[in-house]
């Protein structure tokens, strides 16, 4: 029963001081030992005393600070509390001890904002340089050195590639970027060349539907009439596979798109 009372008091004081319970408990025990009073008496005085009341409305700044005070600071607090309790004990000093507990809890390792900011920026710069700029230049250099380093595409093909990008076809279709040898040995991707930005973007990153890198070399996707019909109303060809129908495209855009698809699979050597 008495233990419950002490526990309640500890909780009350901890709540008033906004300090961890175990810290308040240790402080009270140290105070009790030094003053010859019981822990309960010490806690009662803290909980009801004016001194506590004064410190029981901590500034919001302190409230915010206590939230993440590292536990490793706790031993320092304990030492300070023990040091204090060795002094002559009077009621006024109780107030000092309690206030000191609060102050010490919020005393944290001094960290320089400048060092932290510099550290984060350095890691960012390092990542940008080594994970982006250097490999990008490396790839471009390899291509620059090759004999045949550019892809020629007609205006119609480029326009078709733009329609392909606007429709976001690359969210389902890749153009030969699989990681296995049988997959990657054919097609454009292994032949690094300077190309139109839209053509590059159309290569795709996730494969949901079939790969289109050689679609123009196979039946029936090498047939412009079949492609036009499929793209306008895909259900007329296959109802099981949920391919979007692009009947909202105007005739020109549909034609460009078909021209672009028929260009896939041409040799890039």
């Amino acid at each position: 029963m008495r233990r419950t009372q002490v526990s309640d008091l500890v909780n009350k004081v901890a709540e008033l001081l906004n300090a961890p319970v175990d810290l308040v408990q240790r402080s009270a025990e140290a105070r009790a030992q030094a003053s010859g009073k019981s822990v309960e008496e010490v806690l009662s005085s803290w909980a009801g005393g004016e001194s506590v009341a004064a410190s029981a409305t901590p500034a919001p700044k302190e409230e915010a600070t206590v939230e993440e005070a590292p536990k490793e600071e706790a031993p320092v607090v304990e030492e300070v509390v023990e040091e204090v309790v060795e002094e002559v004990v009077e009621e006024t000093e109780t107030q000092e001890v309690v206030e000191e507990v609060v102050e010490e809890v919020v005393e944290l390792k001094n960290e320089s904002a400048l060092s932290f900011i510099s550290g984060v920026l350095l890691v960012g710069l390092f990542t940008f340089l080594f994970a982006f700029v250097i490999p990008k230049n490396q790839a471009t250099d390899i291509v620059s050195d090759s004999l045949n380093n550019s892809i020629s595409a007609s205006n119609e093909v480029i326009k078709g590639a733009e329609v392909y990008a606007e429709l976001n076809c690359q969210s389902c279709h890749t153009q030969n970027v699989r990681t296995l040898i049988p997959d990657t040995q054919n097609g454009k991707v292994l032949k690094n060349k300077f190309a139109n930005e839209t053509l590059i973007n159309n290569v795709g990153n996730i494969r949901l539907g079939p790969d289109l890198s050689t679609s123009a070399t196979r039946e029936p996707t090498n047939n412009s009439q079949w492609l036009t019909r499929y793209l306008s109303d895909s259900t007329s060809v296959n109802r099981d596979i949920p391919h979007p129908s692009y009947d909202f495209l105007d005739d020109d855009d549909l034609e460009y798109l078909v021209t672009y698809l028929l260009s896939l699979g041409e040799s890039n050597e």
Partner: protein
Amino acid sequence: MKIKLFPKNEQELSKLFVLIFPLTLLLSLTISFLKNAYFTFANLLPNNSVFNYGFLDRLDTQAALGLVFGASLCLSFSYLFSKSLGRSMVLFPIVFLTLLGVVGTEFLDILVNFFFQNSAYDLGNSSLLILLKILVVFGLFGLATLNLLAKKEASIFASAQFIYGAVVFYLISLFIVRAELNVFSDIFLVNSLYTGTHIYVGVAFIYMAIVHFLMTRPLQAVLFNKTLSSITFWGFLFLLPWTNFKYYYGSVLPNWIENISIYLSMSLVVPLLAFLVNYIKTIQSKEVDGVGSLNLLNFSVILFSITTIFHMISSFENLLPILGITNFVNVITYGLIGSLVLATISLSYYLIPKLYGREVNYSRLEDITFFGFKISYLLLLINNTVLGVNSGYSWNAGANAGSPTIYGEGYGIVWSLISFNFSVNTFISLLLLGSGFLYLISVLRAISSGSITTVEEMVYSND
């Protein structure tokens, strides 16, 4: 309920974002449901420029990774970042405008794509809007730096560290996406690093900032070890940006970067363990029981851990050809976004009494909402893992056998194997949408009719 048009301090600003977050989440979940529904009801939906997968997929990415991420960033920045400084924010009116700018530009991105589909490719990520985004996020970066330099607290709290890291890498990701594409490998580089910086670091760090706050202050717990939180911060900051390159193993990317990605992905175990130990030990020291949304927070940690473990497992060289460039890659994104959403929901429930002075009554509505979110995100992870493995395996089996499954003719075989998982995805996204709707109702109910309680007051002085 009072929300001021021009907030005067951080708390009034946070109130605004507590309300904005459920709305952005609902919008994102609605688009996600429509996107997934396309696969199940393709023949029933009207064939037009909106109801087609490519369009909805782009919109979904912008809503989840742009808008929801932006709203979470703004909420955590306005409340947690200011709390860590020990003073009022420097240049608060500009901070307010910048944070509105972050959410505004992300929302504008969705609007532009919706209304100007034909020119979205030019207006969107490739030119005008991205410049505006860079400007706004650069402003946020400058303000965050200024405020950190002017801090009054001795220590820099973990939450502030993570938020700052997220802002810096969000900015880097915007520069990357602007990069010029010269050769085919560039698209893999850009995509990998954009994913690594924006999604992996950005989303994970906002999540971490919220968790590091929620596991201490609301529970009156003391952070177990600051060193462990530093290991978590610097470990993830250094490793995460490199971890997406591995999914292009064997492609035209330079071999060294693919190998580094594999090894660094496996090293994620170090910051993950540091985080888990810190979390578990800190939670054990909690002084307050019965925080209503604690179970949601705990589940978000489980979700984050599973995602990171998947990230590590997929680094094995034998698995990469099966998992790379399939839906499995999305699992990592779903896991991180899911963790962030759960943590932000938890934070918003904590903030409603503090900011609006209204108690949240954890009733059956909240229980159902929490359960809905938890089960949905878990199922989403499992289902897409199965989907990724199934499709990757069938692509590779076909490729190795020289059969045409990797091309158009044999696709029917592959589709028959994976179509069920797409239908399950539709069901899961419907569950998520329902949970998002209930969450919005719950927040509105708490704000409008919750029993009155004391509002948290923060009286900072800049003297």
